[in-house]
């Protein structure tokens, strides 16, 4: 059972729908006990970085981090990926999970923000999440803040400079784009994650 963590940030039904389509069992939950029992954890989220503070208030942060210590596969999507970093310029007082070093920043003023639409990926070959996906594949983004390119970056995208489209470190995965909204490529990535 995959636990889709509900922290009241945006719309979670699309992630659930995509997993249903793949025939993978999942549940949307804000209950730390349910998260603690998940074989895998997905932290979705569209919206503001500050909404991740709800994770702390509901005891979800502790539940997630405990599970991650047990090496349960984790996928952060959009704000969920940004939460894996130390912090974000969007809400400087909110602490991210700090699983990855770095701070998320706003797009430079010379490009329209938010970054909305289909952008191409530059993928690293060794990624488990991107197995079967090659550079040049398109995925759907919608975000105003971005994570820097770091040593755990496995896919980059370009918009007002390069940023992390995906990160991967052992059992930890994060994607800035929305795999559940990225057509066949997105479904392929979700399938890869589900099959880990």
């Amino acid at each position, binding site marked *: 059972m995959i636990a889709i963590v509900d922290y009241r940030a945006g719309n979670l039904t699309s992630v659930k729908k995509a997993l249903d389509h793949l025939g993978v069992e999942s549940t949307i939950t804000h209950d730390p006990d349910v998260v603690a029992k998940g074989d895998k954890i997905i932290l979705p989220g569209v919206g503001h970085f500050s909404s991740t503070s709800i994770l702390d208030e509901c005891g979800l942060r502790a539940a997630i981090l405990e599970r991650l210590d047990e090496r349960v596969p984790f996928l952060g999507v959009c704000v969920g990926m940004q939460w894996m970093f130390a912090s974000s310029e969007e809400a400087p007082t909110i602490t991210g999970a700090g699983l990855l070093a770095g701070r998320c920043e706003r797009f430079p003023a010379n490009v*329209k923000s938010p970054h*909305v639409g289909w952008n191409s990926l530059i993928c690293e070959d060794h990624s488990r999440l991107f197995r079967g996906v090659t550079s040049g594949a398109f995925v759907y983004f919608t975000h105003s803040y971005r994570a820097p390119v770091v040593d755990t970056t496995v896919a980059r995208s370009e918009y007002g400079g390069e940023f992390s489209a995906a990160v991967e470190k052992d059992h930890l995965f994060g994607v800035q784009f929305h795999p559940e909204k990225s057509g066949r490529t997105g479904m392929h990535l979700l399938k890869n994650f589900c099959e880990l």
Partner: protein
Amino acid sequence: MLTKRIIACLDVMAGRVVKGVQFQQLRDAGDPAELAAAHGEAGADEVVLLDVTATHENRKTLIDTVRRAARQLFIPFTVGGGIRSLEEAMAVFDAGADKISINSAAIADPSLIASIAARYGSQAVIVAIDAKRVTDWATFSGAVRNDASRGSAKDDGVKFEAYVSGGRKRTGRDAVEWAHEAAERGAGEILLTSMDRDGTGIGFDCELTRAVSETVSIPVIASGGGGNTRTFVEVFERGRADAALAASIFHFGLRHLADLKRELQSAGIPMRWPC
């Protein structure tokens, strides 16, 4: 590279897809859920479902249609038409929409933009603007000049007025000014329809599109007038649109989506192709 989007629009009335010319003469074009999936498969970058009647009685039908369409769709899915409150928006999101589009309700109560954005994020709120070139200056109350600092159309005399209620009611508001305000209030995108061009296939109103695109910092979806490949090239290049929306050209087999995207790519417009 960020690509330009081709968005397929399904105008829905009482659970069926319809399409008209200049907001009139509606024709039946099929089942919304089937057509949404077909467009996704054919390479549409997004699907928009617009409830063109948007009557209270049809609300349940719409929600059911949205739910059926969303089940098969793994690309961004927008629903609009008749959403008047946060509660109505929530019902549409619950049914599986990724974004909602609001028009008349946003004009009537602009704070609705912020209240939906606060709950679902700005990226989930599209403000739709139906704009028409002003020909009747005597009754255009919104004759506010766009100031030069925003880089929009200035003294060339061209003005666009925002209409509501499916194009039936004038607002007296300058469409470019309204787009600016909507963006300031937290809209994530502007869906800009030229009423003069809607359903004609003779080309988008590039002047209108550019005026809005240069005024706001959020993406602008151009709508109304899409026809041959050239019309799309023009709205992306001259109109500076981030996305273009089209309906009838796809529904009735007048043109295959894939052909359009391939041709646009050949013309140098960045496209998600192959997809």
